[in-house]
């Protein structure tokens, strides 16, 4: 049988670090980075006798995430201990939620590979604490434990096995990321590890009713690797079955360099986490009023922004959809539009040049180094005629390299547009003198010649001449 006879089944467990100021069970800072073991206290270091106290903001953020993904919010949930030994887990257990998660039975809408709407169901979202980090061999041999991340709050969103291709999995994860960004519960910076996914993959013959045995690829933190890993792993499983083999349920590690998956541990070492209710914490009881209040104050979600961009700002459906796919792009768009007052130009810059540079640099929108104010000011400079659009592109490149006030960039590089009439006239005369053939062509009715002449003038001024003035003056001179 061919690969086309198989169906790939994918489910995702997505961990998002919440952007609360303090950790989930103590008042230490959640800030990323910092010298090792400086954002720690007896509680998150698991010192003997220290006790956890649940950060109420974490519950609030969890409920927000649940509401934004159409979940039922549990009025009565609890915390459970997941016991295992590892040096990045100082208590020797993670405080998670086992049988009573905060949110259950949600869904998000994505598009399938044909562009048709598709619903991906969410089994649950629960709250838990993150582990610390191990630094291997960084300081001359051995491993060192950094507990700054230990106790940073996470939400784990578990999908149903509803995805059928790597593309769907990517779009689901992008959608989830975008929702969490919009409701401001997580900054979802994958490069900082604040959004990670465990990817479950199985295959089955098309039309089969039972699922195949799944494997789980742990801790994936880039869209590209997730897509590659799903493609590799599903093909590996299909080949294995085709060769008469059996897929084993196991945890795998995806290696980006070799483009392969490797087993993380053998089956004999399978962990028994011995979940039980954490006796140090009390039940989480939420009133209808509390949940209603959070619902009322949920920030605007992408769908609503999209509609507003279309109806109020006159963007096309496609442009509005592309911009609202990322909260960072959407926020950049709104900020830019507010500074320059031109929604269409703002959208054009974001969807053409900025998106192209992001692609070239393999960057995510959240990595854009400049501010909306800077982009807005640049557009203002173009509109005022201080710089041309061509110079604008140069300014944008500079904004990606060394973000600064566009006016400063323009000044420092001597990019101010030449709008002085006598200076322009001088260039026009020089160009005309050097290109008699073009004059003849123009007079013979070849309009293209004008474009050529303007191009020559731009070249001569290194793009700084005001193109409208050039155009006007060439026509005047040629018609004399």
């Amino acid at each position, binding site marked *: 049988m061919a690969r086309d006879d198989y169906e790939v089944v994918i489910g995702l467990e997505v961990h998002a670090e919440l952007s609360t100021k303090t950790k989930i069970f103590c008042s230490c800072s959640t800030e990323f980075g910092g010298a090792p073991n400086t954002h720690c206290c007896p509680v998150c270091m698991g010192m*003997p006798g*220290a006790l956890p106290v649940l950060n109420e903001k974490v519950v609030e953020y969890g409920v927000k995430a649940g509401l934004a993904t159409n979940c039922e919010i549990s009025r009565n949930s609890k915390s459970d201990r997941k*016991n295992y030994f590892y*040096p990045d887990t*100082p208590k020797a*257990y993670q405080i998670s939620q086992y049988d009573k998660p905060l949110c259950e039975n949600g869904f998000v809408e994505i598009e399938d590979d044909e562009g048709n709407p598709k619903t991906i169901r969410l089994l649950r979202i629960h709250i838990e604490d993150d582990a610390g980090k191990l630094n291997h061999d960084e300081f001359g041999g051995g491993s060192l434990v950094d507990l700054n991340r230990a106790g940073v709050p996470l939400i784990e969103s578990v999908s149903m096995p509803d995805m059928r291709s790597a593309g769907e999995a990517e779009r689901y994860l992008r959608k989830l990321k975008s929702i969490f960004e919009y409701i401001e519960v997580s900054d979802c910076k994958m490069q900082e590890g604040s959004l990670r996914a465990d990817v479950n993959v199985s295959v089955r013959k098309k039309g089969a009713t039972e699922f195949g045995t799944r494997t789980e690829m742990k801790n994936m933190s880039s869209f590209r690797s997730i897509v590659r890993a799903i493609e590799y792993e599903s093909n590996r499983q299909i080949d294995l079955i085709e060769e008469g083999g059996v897929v084993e349920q196991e945890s795998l590690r995806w290696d980006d360099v070799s483009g392969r998956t490797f087993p993380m541990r053998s089956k004999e070492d399978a962990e028994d986490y*011995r979940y039980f209710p954490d006796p*140090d914490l009390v039940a989480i009881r939420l009133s209808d009023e509390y949940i209603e209040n959070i619902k009322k104050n949920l920030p605007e979600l992408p769908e609503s922004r999209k509609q507003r961009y279309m109806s109020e700002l006159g963007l096309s459906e496609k442009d509005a959809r592309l911009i609202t796919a990322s909260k960072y792009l959407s926020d950049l768009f709104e900020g830019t539009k507010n500074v320059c007052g031109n929604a269409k130009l703002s959208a054009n810059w974001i969807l053409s040049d900025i998106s192209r540079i992001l692609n070239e640099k393999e960057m995510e929108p959240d990595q854009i180094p400049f501010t909306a104010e800077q982009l807005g000011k640049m557009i203002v400079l173009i509109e005022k005629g201080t710089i041309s659009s061509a110079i604008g592109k140069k300014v944008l490149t500079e904004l990606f390299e060394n973000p600064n006030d566009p006016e400063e960039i323009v000044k420092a590089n001597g990019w101010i547009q030449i709008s002085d009439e006598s200076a322009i006239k001088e260039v026009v005369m020089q160009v005309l003198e050097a290109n008699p053939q073009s004059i003849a062509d123009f007079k013979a009715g070849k309009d293209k010649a004008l474009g050529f002449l303007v191009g020559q003038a731009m070249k001569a001024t290194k793009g700084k001449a005001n193109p409208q003035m050039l155009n006007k003056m060439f026509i005047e001179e040629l018609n004399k």
Partner: protein
Amino acid sequence: MNITELTVHELQEKIASKELTVSEIVKAYSDRIDEKEKDINAFVTILTDDAIAKAKKIDEKINNGQAISGFEGIPIGIKDNMCTKGIKTTCSSKMLENFVAPYDATVIENLNKEGLISLGKLNMDEFAMGSSTENSAIKKTRNPWNLNTVPGGSSGGSAAAVAANMVPWALGSDTGGSIRQPASLCGVVGLKPTYGLVSRYGLVAYASSLDQIGPITKDVYDNAMLLNLITGHDPKDSTSMDLPKPDYTKALKNDVKGLKIAVPKEFFAEGLNPEVKAKLEEAMDKYRSLGAIVEEVSLDISEYSLATYYIISCAEASSNLGRFDGIRYGYRSENGETLRDIYFNSRSEGFGPEVKRRIILGTYVLSSGYYDAYYKKAQQARTLITNEFDKVFKDYDVILAPTSPTVAFEFNSKSSPLEMYLADIYTVPVNVAGLPGISIPCGVDKSGMPVGMQLIGNKFQEETILNAAYTYEQATNFRANFKPEFKK
């Protein structure tokens, strides 16, 4: 005047009237510890030098005419499972033999705020697991009444030090009887508060849903005073209750007229030493003569409570003690190259046999496939036990029971762990139901060893049991009639 025989309320009077200086008091205790520690072995860490220096400063304050608070300069002993900043907290385990906590437990903060002076950290069964203090990896504490017998446990160091006048009072912790049973065996007063009354922050956890810190004192009045110092809501402990804070000494009315005392017949059946039983029956008569109503009731829980207790406490312990892995603090084995070996060897070498037994038991009852049969069932039994107590408290104010089936027993006399577990048969149900219980001495047996009586109250009814205990104490005056003899 023998300073170390005085109660704390007597010491307070002597300081206030300038009959005694704080330095004199601390010096007297320092001398007493020097004299008796070789026999009793109550201390893991002795802090008398530091205490003498602190006493001097307080005396200077007094001499300068500055006012001092009621407890400034009062010495105290601390069970070695409460974290003390800069001072070792060993839990009497090889695992934490050199562990110095970077912070103070909330109860320690409270005592420091009041100006109490710590004389040292007191011995215990390793990680509070045991009923004789024989499980200490540090030393063997002896019972001051008879040095060949155990002081009880796990707060054996605390109870023995109070009984031997080496500290005027002490803090213990009680998970299944660890304050009341040693108090009973050492002839002193020990109270386990209602679960949630005293902050557990900084108490090295044995079983989180059962552990409570409480006072061990010479008399009931001191007990009420020390309880005043350690209770109160702590935002650092989610299980600590936010309730109005009474002055427990105000509850000591010396009057039990009309008090309804229940005597559960199941607590007086097979297994209870006849001499202990006889003393408790005398105590019931005493209560009747004081105007209380004493009636027999049925509280049919003893069959389940020990099993329930050991399943829940071991399950929690197996998880709580996971953090002792030799990585960040505590004992790390010299042997082992791989991470797994370091874990395995550090824990194998660092924990004693009873701790290992309970970790294994707890790991087993939580493991997949057994959870429902053990842990879940134990939680259900826990609810039933609590309901049975509730029924009794509908009609009665106090439950009167033995604290321990026997008086203090000899070292190495329990032939199996199970036999040792039976020493807690009358105390564990109180922890399982989260109730307050106090043990006070009610006489001595023929060999002169103290017998303890346990008074159990409804949740947060410490005032009721303290008054019942106080009234009995005033009428019988155990301390005037009996003293530890340090029999060899």
